[in-house]
């Protein structure tokens, strides 16, 4: 169904003060009354999403009821740790550093991941860095299938399409990172009788850009209903440090930096946000195209990529299936 007013980027404009109040009120009720926990644990990555969640939790529950966890690992950017500390310091909340690298090493996560990369790049060796990237599926009729980009210490890069075994091997091994972080988050949640706050936004939630029982697991998800551009609006209102708000979004998962656009169909996040909004609202590609500065054909391709991702995300968000309800 098409709307009666023209669509523009303003469609995602929120009243940040009102939205923050709404979330804060809900958080108090959820944590104290629904979950009956004494506070929350937030994994703070130095990105805008986890920063906004930490700020909201502080306002809702008080700084003494928020624990900020910094959980870097071997491949994390040093900036992530520095900016995570900046968030904790600016909020004056308790902050614990937990390097998850030893857990990942013990689980053979790095070893299994490297073995998977070597299935398609046999010359990949220690010291090389890599990331996985999607092709441009908005400007061309392409499938959303990943390639691996390997960079050797001398800067030479090699891009190779992944085969199914290598793709699944890289993803399965890398997903251990998010699950290891969740293991630590719940350790502290149990220790302090706190709840775990998830930091996924709607873009990640709707498209399944999260790890099942990893960053997808939480007791409450304060910003899961907000598009990424709305999270940025809240960040500005809440006073999240500018360096965090202006930092190019990164997945901070692979040793070679992967920006989120390489994960989101090769279009900038602001356009991706509007495409997802348009898709969810049933707005036709023709009506949405002017607002996102894309052609109707490009929007149509983005819609098809979104639909495909949402289908794939069905399993990720599915609760455990029971044989019989009770």
């Amino acid at each position, binding site marked *: 169904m098409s709307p009666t007013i023209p669509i523009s980027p303003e469609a995602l404009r929120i009243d940040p003060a009102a939205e923050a109040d709404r979330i804060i009120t809900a958080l108090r009720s959820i944590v104290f009354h629904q979950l009956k926990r004494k506070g929350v644990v937030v994994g703070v990555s130095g990105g805008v999403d986890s920063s906004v969640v930490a700020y909201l939790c502080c306002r809702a529950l008080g700084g003494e009821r928020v624990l900020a966890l910094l959980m870097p690992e071997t491949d994390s950017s040093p900036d992530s740790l520095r900016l995570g500390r900046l968030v904790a310091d600016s909020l004056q909340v308790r902050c614990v550093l937990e390097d998850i690298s030893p857990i990942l090493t013990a689980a053979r996560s790095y070893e299994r991941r490297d073995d998977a990369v070597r299935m398609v790049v046999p010359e990949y060796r220690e010291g090389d860095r890599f990331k996985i990237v999607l092709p441009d599926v908005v400007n061309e009729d392409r499938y959303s*299938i990943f390639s691996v980009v390997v960079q050797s210490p001398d800067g030479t890069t090699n891009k190779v399409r992944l085969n*199914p075994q290598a*793709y699944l091997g890289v993803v399965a091994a890398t997903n251990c990172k998010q699950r290891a972080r969740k293991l630590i988050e719940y350790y502290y949640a149990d220790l302090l009788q706190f709840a775990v706050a998830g930091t996924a936004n709607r873009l990640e939630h709707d498209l399944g850009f999260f790890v099942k029982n990893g960053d997808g697991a939480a007791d409450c998800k304060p910003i899961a209903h907000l598009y990424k551009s709305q999270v940025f609006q809240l960040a500005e209102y809440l006073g999240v440090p500018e360096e965090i708000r202006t930092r190019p979004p990164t997945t901070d998962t692979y040793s070679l930096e992967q920006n989120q656009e390489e994960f989101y169909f090769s279009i900038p996040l602001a356009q991706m946000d509007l495409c997802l909004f348009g898709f969810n609202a049933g707005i036709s590609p023709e009506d949405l195209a002017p607002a996102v500065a894309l052609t109707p054909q490009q929007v149509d391709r983005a819609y098809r990529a979104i639909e495909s991702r949402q289908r*794939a995300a069905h399993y990720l968000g599915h609760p455990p299936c029971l044989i019989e309800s009770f």
Partner: protein
Amino acid sequence: MTIANELRCFIVDNYLYGQANGWLTEDTSFLESAILDSTGILELIGFIQERFHIRLEDEEIIPDNLDSIRKVANFLSAKLESSARQEVTA
């Protein structure tokens, strides 16, 4: 067995778990009917490369070539024929 039949068996065995029930036609879109996701496409590519001893180039991995049994069969027939011609010429 024809290419189309081999593809059909691969799809039915691996993604429909033997339950085609007559609705999978040669023109059923793999993506629109949600038979294959992106990982499924990777597996289809792997199957084609291994079974027919060819390599699919990145620019060939598009819905026009791979989104139904008929499209894959037509694409493969043309590609195999072209490869055979090149071998004879060489």
